[in-house]
């Protein structure tokens, strides 16, 4: 059960039960939805930018504990950061959950996201952990309004 405990840490279960910023932003400047066609997980992400700074963020949707807690932690992690900082964090987070980057060396930078590092032991669940992040990235770059996990190469 150790890997399972690692995956389903208390912090993750807690975010899953009471997701933060679980709301639609009425005055959002950026928006995108993330969709996993294989399992039907679906999230919408709203961002409000003031210049280059993310002053507010919200999300709504349905999915497993991993995808929902990751979305929730994402909102708390990037609220108040600049767009560049948010993108950089996504890059690091992505490397951690895909097992390409050691957690221990940089645990401080990740903050609560460190709780999601157990995902790297569960390849089938990586897409769950990154779904809302892809939507956030898409919203910020305006590349597409609906993104699909299938655009990410299989890990």
């Amino acid at each position, binding site marked *: *059960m150790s*890997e*399972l*405990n690692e*995956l*389903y840490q208390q912090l993750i*279960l807690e975010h899953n*039960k009471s997701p933060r910023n679980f709301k639609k932003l009425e005055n959002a400047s950026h928006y995108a939805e993330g969709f996993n066609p*294989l*399992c*039907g*997980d*679906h999230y919408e992400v709203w961002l409000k930018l003031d210049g280059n700074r993310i002053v507010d963020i919200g999300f709504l949707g*349905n*999915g*497993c*504990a*991993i995808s*929902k807690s990751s979305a929730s932690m994402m909102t708390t992690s990037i609220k108040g950061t600049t767009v560049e900082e948010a993108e950089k964090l996504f890059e690091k987070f992505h490397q951690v959950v895909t097992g390409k980057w050691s957690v221990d060396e940089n645990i401080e930078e990740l903050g609560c996201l460190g709780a999601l590092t157990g995902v790297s032991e*569960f390849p*089938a*669940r990586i897409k*769950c952990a990154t779904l809302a992040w892809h939507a956030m990235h898409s919203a910020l770059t305006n590349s597409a309004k609906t993104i699909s996990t299938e655009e990410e190469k299989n890990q």
Partner: protein
Amino acid sequence: MQTVEKELLFDIETIRNNFPILHTSVHGKKLVYLDNAATTQKPRSVLETLDIYYREQNANIHRGVHHLSEVATFEYEKARGKVKNFINASDNKEIIFTRGTTESINLVAHSFGRKFLHEGDEIIISAMEHHSNIVPWQLLCEEKKAVLRVIPMNDDGELIVGEFEKLLSRKTKLVSVVYVSNSLGTVNPIKKIIERAHQNGTPVLIDGAQAVAHMNVDVKELDCDFFAFSGHKLFGPTGIGVLYGKQSILETMNPFQGGGDMIRSVTFEKTTYNDLPYKFEAGTPHIAGGIGLGAAIDFVQKIGLQKIYEYEHELLTYAMRVIGSIAGVQLIGTAKEKAGVVSFVLENIHPHDIGTILDREGVAIRTGHHCTQPVMKRFGIPATARASFALYNTKDEIDALVKGIGKVKEVFA
């Protein structure tokens, strides 16, 4: 008397010993394979048949005059004969080898649908179809400006036959329904559906993917016009499937793909097509797959489909009772006529999380929408967890699943 009883005995250990993979471990736990609606495991006889084919018989079929080509052709056509007997078709000409159920349905959409469907015509499917029995018809309807109609179902996941009768009209050009629902387990009253459709002069395609491994199928008795299934859900290889079609209809249809084997003569001015079934089999087929499917059919026939049906029914009844009585579980699909599929949701826990935790216990189930998104929508859920049984499953394995669900609840407590 005694010998009869002995014969009727369903010796589960002997059956399980035929499947090497059932004796493997996953994450240090004994494998409990309950994802048979997705694909079934392969018995030794199928594995050995494939091995012998590639070691001793491999050649291209229907063209060589050399020894190996004759052997391969003989074995492949012998397998076609086994399929014919298995579903009680009238003639080998009615058995078309395809890649699987999906390709079989697409073949009908292309070769029958594109020829006979016109603007304003209608095709009837049901509310519990797999995407593979929805999308080909949508594509066809879009092209032909035809209309897709859907037979609704009730809260138990049973088709409402009265509504089907109302949908039938002179515009109806084809009815295509699933025999056994992959996400709900419902066994549909297809005999009645076929009868009503025929009274309306409409041919019927049956998606039999989830039926053939679990019950007797007799296409003559059903009187269906088309019947599609996959080899890999019947203990055979992936990449091989079957389309049965009544000869009289197949003869009126256009070819499917163009290429070698499906032609009689080719000039740059005109090509004439080969006889049935080859008219629909362009290119080198999955020869090993066809022969392997023949071995799989031998395997289930040796045990007997009626015995398999009765055994699995007992498993299903047990599973519905013990899973259904777990606190927080809601069963999805509670039809009176059901085959070995138990779909469920667990209060406040997403099916994906259930699947991951069960996997660590060695229990393989499927989670998600099972390629039936309209079914999920009908029940107002994004996904389900699904356990599906085959002849080699046991009550002990269902107990392992129940224990696993207990673990899931512990993790999320």
